[in-house]
């Protein structure tokens, strides 16, 4: 019998970083910016939080105030990712650089930044600890609702997560609402579809692109923070975050640019990501590697089908990946 009660919570904790990443990337892409720097941004968000909490835990000694322990890493994470977002916007919007190249450079930089400080923080600060283990901070982040333990399977499936998991869902739903139902969302989509028309309608293209991309980066950064503080129990290990950033970008396509669909789709992806742990393959370990391919294959299929069906509402934003220069028309 397939063990759903232990499978679903594990799929959910896998899904949260993906959900943050894809919600952030959807908002970014709706403004016409194809930010391939998201994997890097998520690393930067994670390591910024780690650095802040590392210093806090050291200075606080034994008595960690849980409010400060959450606030400081979150602020650092948001600032770190915001800076990455600003860098991306400055290069692609203000200086009109190529988005793919800028994004890939940001990913190289961001992953390098994360691994460098993750691997050298102890050496640089001269601390006398063997590795970065922020257990006190992690305990604050992963604290679940007090009654979760008493509700059995229901509690385990729905209430056993840290607050960042619920925040991810709230942000995704809010993003979906704003994109679909508000004037701001309409204008943002107009910017991504056809900036020239939006410009003529009096919408400030630069402002929209900057704000959308920066907010997107900050949301994505939280995904990195969730991963290290909650999922990884506050222990930083280099490259542990893996290819989740790219998987988040895959999720954007899979959900056809809808953050609300992303809530369930990310759980599906998270499930596919760990499905190999639950499939009884006996001694044949190799098949498990093929299972790990599933999220990407599924994404490719969705990509192909949406392009074949050519339904207007399912297409990528029309000017995705292009910089806008008013005088170019």
């Amino acid at each position, binding site marked *: 019998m397939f063990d759903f009660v232990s499978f679903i919570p594990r799929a959910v904790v896998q899904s949260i970083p993906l959900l943050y990443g894809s919600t952030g990337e959807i908002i970014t892409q709706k403004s016409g910016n194809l930010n*391939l720097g998201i994997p890097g941004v998520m690393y930067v968000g994670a390591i910024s939080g780690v650095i802040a909490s590392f210093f806090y835990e050291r200075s606080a000694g034994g008595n960690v105030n849980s409010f400060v322990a959450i606030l400081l890493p979150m602020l650092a994470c948001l600032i770190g990712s915001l800076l990455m977002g600003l860098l991306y916007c400055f290069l692609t919007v203000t200086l*009109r*650089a190529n988005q*793919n190249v800028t994004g890939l*450079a940001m990913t190289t930089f961001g992953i390098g930044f994360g691994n460098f400080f993750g691997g*050298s923080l102890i050496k640089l600060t001269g601390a006398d600890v063997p590795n970065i283990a922020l257990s006190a901070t992690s305990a604050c982040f992963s604290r679940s609702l007090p009654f979760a333990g008493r509700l059995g399977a229901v509690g385990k499936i729905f209430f056993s997560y840290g607050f960042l998991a619920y925040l991810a869902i709230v942000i995704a739903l809010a993003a979906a609402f704003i994109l679909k139902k508000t004037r701001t969302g309409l204008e943002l989509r107009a910017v991504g579809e056809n900036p020239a028309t939006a410009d003529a309608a009096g919408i400030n293209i630069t402002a929209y692109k900057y704000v959308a991309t920066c907010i997107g980066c900050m949301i994505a950064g939280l995904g990195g923070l969730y991963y290290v503080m909650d999922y990884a129990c506050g222990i930083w290990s280099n490259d542990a975050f893996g290819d989740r950033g790219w998987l988040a970008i895959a999720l954007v*396509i899979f959900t056809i640019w809808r953050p609300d669909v992303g809530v369930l789709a990310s759980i599906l992806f998270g499930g596919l990501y760990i499905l190999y742990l639950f499939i009884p393959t006996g001694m044949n370990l190799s098949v498990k590697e093929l299972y790990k391919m599933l999220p990407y294959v599924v994404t490719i299929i969705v*990509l*192909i089908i949406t392009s074949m069906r050519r339904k207007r509402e399912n297409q990528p934003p029309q000017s995705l990946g292009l910089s806008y220069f008013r*005088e170019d028309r």
Partner: protein
Amino acid sequence: MHNKTPLIRLSKRKALPTSKAWGIRLLAILLSLVFCAVLTMLVTDLNPVKVFATMFQGAFGTVRKTWTTGQEIAMLLLVSVALAPAFMMHFWNLGGEGQILIGGLATAACMILLGGKIPNGILILVMTVSAMAAGAIWAFIPAFFKAKWNTNETLFTLMMNYVATQLVAYYVIIWEVPKGSGKIGIINQSTEAGWLPQIGSYKYLLNILIALAVTVLMFIYMRYSKHGYELTVVGESERTARYVGIKVEKVIVRTLILSGAVCGLTGLLLVGSTNHTITTTIADNRGFTAVMVAWLAKFNPISMILSSALLIFLKRGASEISTMYHLNQSFGDILTGIILFFIIGSEFFIQYQIHFRKKGQ
């Protein structure tokens, strides 16, 4: 008061002379190097001169290091050259990583399954053909869908990378030696079947020569052949291309097959000549780094020799500094990122002119 011209105004430059454009780029590189040196000083106690001396030491310090640097440059160059024609056509092939891996996988498969069963010369030929074919197929799939249904190639090729990675992981476990170790180890260690020949006593010379030859051929192909002309036109404007009777779909598929085949060739060299084994990380992010190398060189294969050399120099130099100071090896990625940001930013000043408001306007 209301009719003032804006304080800062931009206009597109007609075309900056090449010398001036490269001057701006060089300035950007210099600025970024200064910035990198300052950053290095902050995390170590080296003075700026020492920083570059150490980096130079890391890249060219010994004969052995110099050869490794040469080999690294050659491999990065080969991938960049492979991507160039696709980029020229504005087809964003971000799947270099997967195409290298799948080429390497095909090579390894031939070495393992056919090694010792057929003469070595024929084996190497079979390896070459299958590696290039595998890479070509991996690029053909997204190209076909792009040509037929305009499927987004950036995202498609990106996903193909991970399919290839998992495929390699699958076969690594099937072929692992010894069982349970999770890696293949050196293939055909005793017989050396399928190992590409070594020129004299220089292990990496063959790779370097092949990379240079392909670079020159690609330059000629892109600059002087009809195919090269066609793909340039498609890149400039698809409508123009259709109007003058170029079959855009055909050009896309043909160019991507070429692009994938050269990536597959890189896989062949990495597995058959450099490492004699295959892992999931054998492409070592070259597929992505090459995107930046190709772009830095403005898609000109000859200039890519310089841009790939710059990035490899940084990588190996930074690695030396990290080793000396027991810092993490990722320091090189940070420096690479910074230099790229500077050069990416500098393109703006090549393409656009900034006008400030003059007095009285």
